[in-house]
């Protein structure tokens, strides 16, 4: 479980996040949603320690990340897997080498055990046959799958996914969403997905946090989402006609 308490972050004079409080539960797909520029990616980067907040705390199983010393932070980070918006695969390494990378850096396994583990992860995301290719030779969806395989290589307790569906076609998006949901259930990870894709929210969202102008504006499950009377949230989710039709079909109200 990850808890965020009173977190605020600014860059220069620009206040990006203000007093964010949230609990991200274990074994669930927790989602942070919001418009572009609302501060959701900055929140995720504060949680994983890439940004240091001016105020507030991030607690991993009750332990404050920012109060940990360098070695403790390193240990926590080895329990974090992250899927980046652009996949962030290492260009000069093959698919297999990308997945092997965290294992070679930290795992205390033999070479053959590492390769077995990497193959298992690649098989889990259905991309084992591409293990000899370089990232540039893969499609966006395949790169995301490799990103997921790399993220789960170390058996993470915490899985972060930043815009996992960006740039993907609807079918591939569903594949990636399903994969994230299955892995969360299978490994019991605390998963945090940053997204503004409403299909993904309706597909996988269990605990949803809506960020608006750097503040937590709303929190709930996907079932509450369509019936909320929060004006800003409704403006966000019903910006497209499709979601209005979904609501009408599900509730009979427009």
């Amino acid at each position, binding site marked *: 479980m990850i808890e965020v308490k009173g977190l605020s972050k600014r860059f220069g004079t620009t206040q990006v996040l203000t007093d964010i409080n949230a609990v991200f539960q274990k074994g669930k797909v927790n989602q942070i949603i919001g418009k572009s520029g609302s501060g959701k990616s900055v929140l995720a980067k504060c949680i994983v320690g890439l940004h240091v907040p001016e105020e507030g705390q991030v607690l991993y199983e009750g332990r404050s990340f920012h109060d940990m010393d360098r070695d403790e932070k390193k240990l926590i980070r080895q329990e974090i897997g992250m899927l980046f918006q652009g996949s962030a695969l290492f260009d000069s390494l093959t698919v297999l080498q990308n997945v092997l990378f965290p294992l070679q850096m*930290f795992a205390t396994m033999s070479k053959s055990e590492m390769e077995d583990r990497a193959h298992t992860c690649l098989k889990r995301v259905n991309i084992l046959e591409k293990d000899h290719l370089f990232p540039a030779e893969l499609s966006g969806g395949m790169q995301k799958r490799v990103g997921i395989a790399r993220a789960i290589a170390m058996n993470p307790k915490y899985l972060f996914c930043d815009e996992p569906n960006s740039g993907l076609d609807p079918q591939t998006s569903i594949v990636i969403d399903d994969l994230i949901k299955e892995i969360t259930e299978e490994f019991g990870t605390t998963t945090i997905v940053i997204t503004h894709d409403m299909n993904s929210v309706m597909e996988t969202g269990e605990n949803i946090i809506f960020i608006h102008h750097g503040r937590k504006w709303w929190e709930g499950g996907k079932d509450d989402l369509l019936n909320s009377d929060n004006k800003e949230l409704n403006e966000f989710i019903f910006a497209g006609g499709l979601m209005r039709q979904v609501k009408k079909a599900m509730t009979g109200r427009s």
Partner: protein
Amino acid sequence: MGIIGHIGRYALLLKETFSRPERATIYWRRTLEEMDLLGLKSLGIVGLLSFFMGAVITIQTKTNIDSPLIQAWVVGFATRQSTILEFSPTIIALILAGKVGSNIAAEIGSMRVKEQIDALDIMGVNSAGYLILPKILASMFINPFLVMVSMFLSIFGGYIAGTATGIVGSTDYLQGIQTNFIPYHITYALIKTVVFAFIIATVSAYQGYYTQGGTREVGISSTKAVVYSNVVILIVNYALTQLLLI
């Protein structure tokens, strides 16, 4: 950010770079790869430049001291001294700042904008150490070899140019390059080379590591890496020369 801010951030980056590596074997393997990429792949351009540099030094020296009062072997002597003391260590360093420095800044800058450095940090890898330390070690190890090759080819280029054009005889040139040879000058040149290699690798890596934005900014970082490396090399060259030769 002002110059003091940059110096402070550069110092902090170096501290991070030289902190304990996660897996020494991986760093060592990367250092060998960087030696090939940054050093051996520069051998062609270094050789070509050095040969013609030596040829030009010889012709210009002869043109400038064309007097019956000056002995013919002085051309070879001047070519050797210019090459060893200044041209090979400094000019080659400036060339490498252009070739290798821009490569380092572009590579690390691209990794920054593609979030690959964030990925390393999140895994718990010391990204500065993993990316920069092998480049520093590789450059400091391989550049002295490049400069020694450069010295040889420059003096050889001078010999070919001098004898082919007939401005200096073979015997005179060979006598010149052996006259008053001071081995310490080689040491001085190699000390400069190692220091310049450190400057090229670290200044360029600094520019790449703190790139913000997109591909345009990666290009700007590359340019800055070359310009700042050159400026620092020239300033440090003066300081080292005063320190080591006077």
